[in-house]
C-alpha cells in the first residue's frame, strides 16, 4: 500500500500538513516469526523444563510480549516529512515521538537484510551529523524498519537532495521520482580484487569466533571434545608425527581455512559494490551479497579520506579507502560502519578513487620525511616493548607461574619488532596541499589520512619527555569525523608548528615565537 503512495507522491509532501506514512504491513508476516525465533530459547526452556511450574507462564508471557511489541511496532509506527522536520511516532502502551529537523539530517542509510528482501523491503536509517563515538548506534538516529525499497529511495532523495528540490519545487512531483538523477560511477568491485581477500585476514576472526563457540557449547554440555572419536583419531595421528611437522601442518591448515573464509567474507560484504556520485553532491555506496547496504554521504560532510594499508594487504600491493565524514557511525571496525569507500583493491585504484572523490589526490603528494631522530624513537619503542614483555614473562617463569618458552619466544620476536619499528619510521610523513593536511603513520596498520584543513576544530601539540630531548613533537588535528583526531607523529618541532600554522591560518600565529631563541 505504501508503494502506491510512492508512485503518486502527494504534492503536499514536505509541507506543514504532510500525510502520515506507515511501515509496510507485509512486515507483519515476517516480524512475529522473527520475534518467535528470537525468544525460542526462553520458550523452549519454559516448555521443556518448566512443566507444571508457575514460571513456565513467565516464558510464555515473555514470548507473547515480544511478539506483541513487534506487531504493535509495525502497526503503530508512522512518520511524515514536513517542511522543517521528520516526525516519527510509535508505540501503543509506551508511546514515543521523535522529530529531527531536516537541516540536521546528514545521512540516509538503506539496509536490506534477508528478512527485508523477501518482500523487497528495506530499513532506512536517518542520521544526523552528531559525532557519536564508539558504543552502539547514535541515540539521535531514526530507524524506519520496514519500508519498500522504492520508498526508501524516495526518502533518500527527498531528505538529502533538498537543495535540488527547492530549485525545482512543485513542478517536480512524481517526475523527480521517476527520473532518478543520472549517477556517475566512480568505482565498482572487480572479480580480480578477490585475490586481496586472504590478505585482509578477516577469516581469522571467524575462525576464532567458531572455536570459541564450539568450546563454549562443549563446556556447557559437559562434553569433552577429547572423547569424540574423530578428534581422538586426529590427535592420535598427530601423536605419532614429530612436533614440528604437526605444527607446520596445523599452520598450513589454518592458513588455508582463513584464506577461504576471508574470500567468503569478501564476497558477502563487498559483492555488487558500487560507489557513485549523484548530481546533488552526494556519494552513494552500495554493497553486499545477502545483506545489502546502501550509504549516502553528503559531500559537504566529507572531511577527508584515509587510505589504509594493513601490513599483509600492503605486501600484496592492496589498500582500502575510507571516508572521513561527519555523521557516519564509526563502529568497531571502519568497514562495519558506513564509511568504506573502496574494499581491498589495488593501491593505484585506491588513489584513483581518492582523486575522484576529492577532486584531487592529496594522498599521493610526496610527503615530507620526518627527522632521523624519529627513527631512534620508533626503534627504541618497538625493541623496548618486546624486551619489557620478555622480562615480565621471564619474571613469571622464574616464579614458576609459566614455563620457559614464552620469554624465549618473546626474545625471538626482537628482530621482527626492530623491523616493524624501522618500517614505522619509513612510513612517517606529512604534507600540506593547500586544502588538505596529509599524514601517514603505522606499519602493521598503516594509514594515510588526508584531512580537510577547514574541518579541523583546533590544534593540539603534544610532547613527551623523550620527544622533548629529541626535539620532536606530535601535532594532532582534531576533526569531528572519522577517528576524531589524526596525528602527525614525531615531527621536528619547528616543522610541525609551521605545518599547523599553515593548516589553520592565523590560529597559532599569536602564540608562536619566531627565530628569537636560536640554538
Amino acid at each position, binding site marked *: 500500500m505504501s508503494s502506491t503512495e510512492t508512485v503518486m507522491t502527494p504534492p503536499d509532501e514536505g509541507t506543514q500538513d504532510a500525510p502520515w506514512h506507515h511501515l509496510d504491513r507485509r512486515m507483519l508476516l515476517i516480524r512475529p516469526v522473527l520475534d518467535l525465533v528470537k525468544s525460542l530459547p526462553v520458550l523452549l526452556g519454559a516448555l521443556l523444563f518448566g512443566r507444571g511450574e508457575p514460571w513456565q507462564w513467565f516464558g510464555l508471557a515473555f514470548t507473547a510480549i515480544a511478539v506483541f511489541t513487534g506487531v504493535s511496532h509495525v502497526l503503530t509506527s508512522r512518520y511524515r516529512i514536513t517542511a522543517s522536520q521528520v516526525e516519527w511516532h510509535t508505540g501503543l502502551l509506551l508511546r514515543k515521538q521523535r522529530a529531527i529537523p531536516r537541516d540536521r539530517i546528514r545521512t540516509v542509510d538503506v539496509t536490506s537484510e534477508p528478512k527485508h528482501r523477501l518482500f523487497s523491503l528495506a530499513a532506512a536509517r536517518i542520521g544526523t*551529523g552528531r559525532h557519536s563515538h564508539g558504543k552502539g548506534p547514535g541515540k539521535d538516529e531514526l530507524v524506519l524498519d520496514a519500508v519498500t525499497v522504492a520508498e526508501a529511495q524516495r526518502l533518500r532523495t527527498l531528505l538529502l537532495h533538498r537543495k535540488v528540490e527547492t530549485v525545482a519545487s512543485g513542478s517536480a512531483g512524481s517526475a523527480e521520482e521517476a527520473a532518478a538523477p543520472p549517477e556517475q560511477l566512480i568505482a565498482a568491485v572487480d572479480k580480480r580484487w578477490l585475490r586481496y581477500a586472504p590478505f585482509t585476514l578477516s577469516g581469522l576472526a571467524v575462525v576464532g569466533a567458531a572455536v570459541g563457540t564450539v568450546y563454549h557449547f562443549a563446556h556447557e554440555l559437559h562434553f569433552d571434545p577429547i572423547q569424540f572419536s574423530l578428534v581422538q583419531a586426529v590427535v592420535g595421528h598427530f601423536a605419532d608425527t614429530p612436533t614440528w611437522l604437526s605444527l607446520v601442518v596445523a599452520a598450513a591448515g589454518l592458513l588455508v581455512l582463513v584464506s577461504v573464509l576471508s574470500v567468503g567474507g569478501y564476497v558477502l560484504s563487498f559483492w555488487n559494490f558500487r560507489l557513485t556520485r549523484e548530481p546533488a553532491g552526494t556519494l552513494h555506496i552500495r554493497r553486499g551479497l545477502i545483506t545489502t547496504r546502501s550509504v549516502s554521504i553528503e559531500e559537504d560532510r566529507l572531511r577527508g579520506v584515509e587510505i589504509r594499508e594493513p601490513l599483509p594487504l600492503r605486501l600484496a600491493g592492496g589498500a582500502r579507502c575510507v571516508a572521513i565524514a561527519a555523521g557516519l557511525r564509526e563502529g568497531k571496525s571502519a568497514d562495519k560502519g558506513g564509511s568504506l569507500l573502496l574494499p581491498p583493491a589495488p593501491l593505484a585504484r585506491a588513489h584513483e578513487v581518492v582523486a575522484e572523490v576529492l577532486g584531487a589526490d592529496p594522498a599521493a603528494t610526496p610527503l615530507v620525511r620526518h627527522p632521523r631522530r624519529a627513527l631512534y624513537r620508533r626503534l627504541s619503542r618497538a625493541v623496548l616493548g618486546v624486551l619489557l614483555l620478555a622480562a615480565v614473562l621471564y619474571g613469571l617463569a622464574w616464579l614458576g607461574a609459566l614455563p620457559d618458552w614464552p620469554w624465549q619466544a618473546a626474545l625471538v620476536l626482537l628482530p621482527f619488532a626492530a623491523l616493524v619499528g624501522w618500517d614505522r619510521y619509513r612510513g612517517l610523513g606529512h604534507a600540506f596541499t593547500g586544502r588538505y593536511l596529509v599524514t601517514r603513520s603505522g606499519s602493521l596498520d598503516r594509514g594515510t589520512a588526508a584531512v580537510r584543513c577547514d574541518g579541523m576544530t*583546533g590544534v593540539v601539540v603534544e610532547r613527551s619527555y623523550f620527544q622533548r630531548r629529541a626535539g620532536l613533537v606530535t601535532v594532532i588535528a*582534531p576533526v569531528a569525523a572519522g*577517528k*576524531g583526531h589524526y596525528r602527525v607523529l614525531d615531527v621536528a618541532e619547528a616543522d610541525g608548528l609551521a605545518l599547523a600554522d599553515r593548516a589553520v591560518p592565523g*590560529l597559532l600565529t599569536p602564540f608562536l615565537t*619566531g627565530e628569537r631563541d636560536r640554538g
Partner: protein
Amino acid sequence: MSEHTTNTALRLRPPAHRVSRRAIGYWTTTGAILWILLIGLQTVIVVTSDDPPSFLRVTLVISCVLCPLHLVVMPQWRYRVHRWEVTDEAVYTQSGWLKQQWRIAPVSRIQTVDIERDPFEQLFGLAKITVTTASAAGPLRITGLTHDRALALADELTKTTQAVRGDAT
C-alpha cells in the same frame, strides 16, 4: 598563509596566564587525601593481619617516602605547568609534566563551556572550566581558576561563541 621559508626555531610560547595560587593548596589537599587512604589501607593490613604479605611492608615504606616528596613537588610543578589564555579568536591551554600538551581551539568551533566544582574546589573557592568542540579528540580543560574568574570567562566565551554562529563541525 605564512611564508614558506623553513622557520628553524619556531616555538609555541606558553599561554599568558597562570591559574590561581590557591590551586596549590587545593592540589596538596586532594593529593594528601589520596595518600592518607593509600597509606592508611596498607598500615591497617600490616598491623591487623596475622600474616601480612612481605611485599606490603616494602610498599608501605616506599609510600611513606614518596608521599611528602609528591605533596611538596607536585602542586608547585603543576602550578608552573598549567597555563591558559583566551583571546578574541582562540582558547589556548598548556598542561602536563612528563607529557606536555598544548591545545588551541578557535572560538568559532566551541560548542559548550562547562564550569565544574567538586567539594574541595568549593572550599578553596576554585572552579574548573571545560571547553568542548565537535571533535572527539577531547576538550580543553582549565583547572584551578578562581570561581569568579571562571564565571567571567565562561560568560565571555559563550558571548563570543554566539556571535560567530555556525554548526561548528
